[in-house]
Structure formats: structure tokens, C-alpha cells
């Protein structure tokens, strides 16, 4: 019985976290944020050197062949720094999808994912509720339609897209008939695009109409990753709030000696800390208890979504006016948590999915 990190896992987590904290400083983040996510090439290189892009890539393809649990540790570390790199789609979702696709694709792409050479955009939003005017349909190995909120999609070399609830396809970036349209969100540390396809050649990664379980697994993995990202960002916001409260004086006292401020910090800590175990369990379930994975991913995403919102707001409030400006760089984390909440199903939606998984729907 070991509910915690192994030595290797701790090492991995520490090494990425240390790199994030020394590389993605407040100043660097400010500069990168102003330039937008696609300016992050040196960061990708740095992370790839640490092996962060190859966590889920099998050793045979140049990765370290670890599991979702380790990937989630990396994601948490990236969230701690609101690191502007296209990691989640490229290095977490794509390798999971390629693991069971045609081996030619895997051979072609996985080594380049591990080395940080390529970007893969992933579009699964439809699975978390189809909005009007979107949807992809397949005919003769060609895809047509519109896919919105393709994660890490700016300048991607290839795309992994859900077509309805049961099909997953791979599309080469060069094959696009219309260029990807950037979708600016509050969070400038990640890129999202919209793709419009008109009979674009694609490679199915699942047997036609039979990919439901694979897609559900991918969606769940994405949800746990986003929860971990928000957890990391929330940790940083809490730490900064506690630190700031002990520096900043008002009425001749550090504000951290006011009971109201202390209690806000205590509430954040009490809410946030147990999320770690929930996220760990959900990630662990992916391999250890696959029958629980989807539901636990919903719980992690929904609960972390609510706690994240509370922490983002409260940590800003503890900072007072300055937390509301660009000055402290706190807003990067506020917005990162805000986007994590909405992507791949926000808490309301994810709980709806959980109700369905539990068989409660009418």
C-alpha cells in the first residue's frame, strides 16, 4: 500500500518543477505571454531535454514509456509555472492515441514527439457537448466539417480529431484545405484553433464507428490533465498569496496577521490540498482500475474546477489591488485556471457525464 510517489516519480516531478521555477520566471512569463504561446520554442527544447515530451512515448520510440500518472505529474509542474508550451495535446493526448493506432503512424510521429520536434493539435471538444455549427463527418477516409477548440493547434504538424463519439482520425497538417483559425482565449499561454475541413484526407485511428471506448479514455485523460494543470496553478496562487500576506503591511501590520486574511488562506489550503490525492487517484486508475477511470476523471475535473475557481479568486483578493494588475503576474494563473475549467467540459457538464456513467439518467 503506497499512496504517493515512488522515488523515480518524485525525481521526475522535482526535476520538472525545478526547471519550471528557474526558467519560467515572472519576467519570462510576462514576455512570453505578450508574444503568445507559439513563441515558446526554447521552452519546448528545455523540456524535451528533461524528457518531459517523451514521458508517454514507449522506449522503443525514444521516450521513457511511463504512464498517465507520471504524465500528470509533469502537467502539474507545468501548471505551477503556467508554462506556455503546447504540451498537453502533443505529449499527453497524442501518444495515448497513437499507442493503439496504426504502427506506421506511431513509428513516424512518436520519436519526433519525444524530441519536441513536432506539435500535434487535439480536438475532442465535441465529446464534451456539441455546440451548433460544429462537427466532423467522415466519408471515404476524408473528413469534412468544423472542429473548434483544437488544443495546441497553432502551427501544428498534425491533428488528432474526434469525429462524432465513435471515431478518431489523424490529419496531416499539410493536408488542411483552409488554414487553422486562432481562437484567442483569456489564457495566452496555450493555443486553441478552429479547423474547417472540406474532404481532407485522414487516417482513422480506430475501427470505423468502434472507437467509443478509446475516445472516452482519451477524454478522461485530458480531463485529469487539465485538473492537474489547475492544481499546479492553484498551488502557485496559494503560495504567492501566503507570501504576499506576510510582506505587505496595512494599518501598520502585515496583512497576514489579520484573521480574515489568515482564514482566506486557510480555506484555500483546506480546499486545494485534498485535490492532489483525488487527481493522483484518477490518474492511477487509468492503468490500475480502468473500470473506474472515466468516473474518477469526471470527479477530478469537476471538483478541481470548483476549487480552482475559489482559489483563483481568493488568492487575487488576498493580494488586493495589485493582484488585479499585470504587476505581480498573478493573472496568468487566474486565467490558466479559468481555461482549465472550461476545456473538455466544465464542472456542470462533467457532472452530467458522471451522472450518465453512474446510470442515473432517466
Amino acid at each position, binding site marked *: 500500500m503506497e499512496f504517493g510517489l515512488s522515488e523515480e516519480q518524485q525525481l521526475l516531478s522535482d526535476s520538472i518543477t525545478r526547471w519550471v521555477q528557474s526558467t519560467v520566471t515572472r519576467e519570462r512569463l510576462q514576455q512570453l505571454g505578450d508574444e503568445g504561446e507559439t513563441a515558446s520554442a526554447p521552452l519546448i527544447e528545455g523540456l524535451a531535454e528533461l524528457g518531459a515530451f517523451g514521458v508517454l512515448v514507449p522506449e522503443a520510440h525514444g521516450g521513457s514509456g511511463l504512464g498517465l500518472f507520471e504524465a500528470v505529474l509533469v502537467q502539474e509542474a507545468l501548471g505551477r509555472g503556467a508554462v506556455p508550451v503546447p504540451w498537453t495535446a502533443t505529449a499527453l493526448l497524442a501518444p495515448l492515441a497513437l499507442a493503439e493506432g496504426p504502427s506506421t503512424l506511431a513509428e513516424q510521429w512518436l520519436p519526433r514527439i519525444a524530441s519536441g520536434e513536432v506539435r500535434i493539435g487535439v480536438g475532442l471538444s465535441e465529446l464534451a457537448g456539441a455546440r451548433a455549427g460544429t462537427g466532423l463527418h467522415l466519408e471515404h477516409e476524408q473528413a469534412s466539417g468544423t472542429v473548434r477548440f483544437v488544443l495546441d493547434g497553432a502551427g501544428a504538424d498534425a491533428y488528432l480529431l474526434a469525429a462524432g463519439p465513435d471515431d478518431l482520425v489523424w490529419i496531416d497538417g499539410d493536408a488542411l484545405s483552409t488554414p487553422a483559425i486562432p481562437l484567442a482565449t483569456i489564457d495566452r499561454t496555450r493555443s486553441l484553433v478552429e479547423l474547417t475541413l472540406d474532404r481532407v484526407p485522414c487516417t482513422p485511428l480506430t475501427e470505423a464507428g468502434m472507437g467509443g471506448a478509446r475516445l472516452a479514455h482519451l477524454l478522461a485523460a485530458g480531463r485529469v490533465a487539465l485538473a492537474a494543470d489547475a492544481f499546479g496553478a492553484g498551488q502557485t496562487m496559494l503560495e504567492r498569496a501566503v507570501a504576499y500576506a506576510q510582506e505587505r503591511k496595512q494599518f*501598520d501590520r502585515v496583512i497576514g496577521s*489579520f484573521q480574515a486574511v489568515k482564514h482566506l488562506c486557510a480555506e484555500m489550503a483546506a480546499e486545494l490540498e485534498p485535490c492532489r490525492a483525488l487527481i493522483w487517484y484518477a490518474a492511477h486508475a487509468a492503468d490500475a482500475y480502468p473500470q473506474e477511470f472515466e468516473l474518477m476523471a469526471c470527479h477530478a475535473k469537476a471538483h478541481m474546477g470548483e476549487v480552482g475557481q475559489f482559489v483563483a479568486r481568493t488568492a487575487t483578493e488576498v493580494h488586493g489591488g495589485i*493582484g488585479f494588475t499585470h504587476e505581480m503576474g498573478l493573472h496568468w494563473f487566474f486565467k490558466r485556471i*479559468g481555461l482549465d475549467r472550461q476545456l473538455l467540459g466544465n464542472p456542470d457538464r462533467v457532472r452530467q457525464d458522471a451522472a450518465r456513467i453512474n446510470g442515473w439518467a432517466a
Partner: protein
Amino acid sequence: MDLRLSAEYDLWRSEVKDFLARERDLYTQPMSDPSGRPSSAGRLWQEKLIEQGYTCRTIPAAYGGHGGQPDILRSFIVAEEFNRVGASTGLANQGISMFVPTLLERGTEAQKQRWIRPTIRGEIVWCQGYSEPGAGSDLANLRTSAVEDGDDFVINGQKIWTSSAHFSDMMFILVRTEPDAPKHKGISYVLLPMDTPGIDVRPLKTMTGRAEFNEVFLTDVRVPKSQVVGERGEGWLVANTTLKHERGMLGDPNQANAMLARIEAILREETVDGRPLIEHPVFQDRLLRLQGRALAMKFHGLRLLTSSLRGEDAGVGRLLVKLNGTELNHDIAAFAIDALGEIGALYEDAPHLRDRGFWQSTHMFSLGLIIGGGTSQIQKNIISERGLGMPREPKPAQLAAGGH
């Protein structure tokens, strides 16, 4: 309880309606220049409103106001009718909302003569110089110094959260003129032309990504001592006159109800998996919870209005308005974002952006309002102390020992 208006007010309302119908061509023009200053249409509009008594109603005619008796109900009707057609209710900068009321209470006759008319007509634009990086909720900690030099003060220091500094002509500023006096004493309220050498205005970008505020750096800025309002060293009292006027400005319940009406429309328009969101019980439930809070604040506002008309002190009822109003607006925006889902996270110039990004910027800006003008934490101090009569926080021992 009788929410109907007497015939006199019905008449007033139809006059207002007629006026608006007549002046539609004017009020549909932009009220501000791109710089942020009142446009010529804005100034003309303001002049007409003063003439009608729709704004600056109680400011004496001798200073350029309408010179009428206060009539909250008439003002209420004006606000309702103007909101209905989306007409500006007049210029609303801090010069008009804060400086003029202060001057009327604390200024000399000469100061009133000099400043009020051009201010309310929009010819002179003011910004407020209270907050400093080290003194947010705590004005007594003010550090910007004003040292006597002949007939002048020489000002050095830094101000923050000055919202219109980059296009203002003048600033009403709090400076420390008596450094040795106890903290609340020794502050003076001074009128400072913004083109005085040594003033550097830098935009302050907030989390919304826009520069809604500025920082103002003051280096050896000279201003004649005659520019003090009220007694020298009494600026704390003078400023409190002004702060009182600011408190009323935040948390308009009509805004909350208007936002909720818009959200209801969104829920009808937006579909997920082909089904309108309004049919989803969880969204119905969340919308109704917010509507309940917003309606309570709306009717509470009417009750406060009646209290004012009767000259009663609404006590805790008035103190809670800012806390509840800003928290409610923040929660409403958060709900709209959730209803929109991933679309709700869009911002700036994104395609598919709804309502021009209003919900995200309101979500963030309302957090700024929760923090600004006395954070929710400070508001709770005020409610418990002034509203419920609970004791003030005891002074910490080391301070008392230090002899403050």
C-alpha cells in the same frame, strides 16, 4: 407599500420621455472622444441635462448647476427612462461625482466659483489622487509628501488607480503636508494641474488586459499653497466627504438584473448536443439562484430609496450594498461563462466571441471592484462595526507600546 407614482411624477416621466424622443439624434452620438474626454456632443448633452434638471439637479445655478431641490424620485425616474433607451445620464467622471460634492461642502466661495461650472460642463476633466502602492484601504498611511517652499508645496511621491489621469486637466490629490503630525492628521487635499512639470502618467494594465487605470509619478511638482481645499492638515476629513460619495456608486441592482435577462436570452440561443441550455435543469437552477439574489437587491434598493425619501437612516441596509452588489455581479459573470462553456473562455478578437467579451471582462473587472474601493473584507469590517455595533479590532500590543 405602493409602488405607483403620484400624478406629479407621472407627468415628470412623460416630460422625460418626450425629451428623450426629441433629442434622440443627440444622445445616440458618442459622448466621448477617442481620448476619453467628453466629446462636443457629450458636452452639449450635459448642458441640456443640467437645464432640464436631469443631472446636477441640486447644484446651485450660481455655479452652473440646475439649482433645484433634491428629488430622489425624479432622479430615479430619469435613470429608469434613460436606461430604457440607452441614453447617457450625463457625464460621470470623478470630478463630477466626487470633487464637486466635496467642494460644495468644504470649498471656499472662490473655489466653488472657479471650478464647479467648467467641471460639470465637461470643460475641465479631473482625476483622483488618493491611493498609493503602500496605502490601499488605509489612507492614513499615505506617503506622498508636500514640502513647503515659499508660497508653494513641492510634491514627491506616487499615486495609483487613477483611472482617467491620461486625459485629465486636473487632479484632486491627497498629500502629506505635516510629516510629524499623527497619521490621520497632516494630510492636505490639493488641486493640481496635470500639466505641471514633474508629473509622469503611466498606464496600469489590469488582468483584463486593458489599462483601465494609471500610475502617476510625482517628482518635485510645485503647486501654490492656495490650492488647498479645506484646512491644511484636514485633508483626511475632506477626503472622507468624497469617499462617502464614491461608496454609493458601486453595486447598481439594475445592472445585475439586466445581465441576468441577457443570460436568459443566451440560454435560449445556445444549444449543446442540439438542446437549448434553458431546458437544462441545472442551468435553470443556477439562473434562478442568481435571480433570487438579484431581485432581493433590486427591491432592497427600492426600500433604501423610500428610506431616503423619508429621511430615515437605513443603517446596515445601506452598508451591505457594495459587498452584495459586487459579489453578485462577479458570480453572474462566472455563470454566463459556464453557460457558454469553452466559448465562454474566448476573449479579445476571437471569432465566435459572444457579447464582445463582456462576460470575461466583467468577471475580471468585477473582481477588481470587489477588491477596490474597500475589499469585501473591509466591507465586512464596516458592516459589523458601523451596522451591527460590534467592537473595532483591538490595536496590536507592539503598536500601542510604540505610542501611536
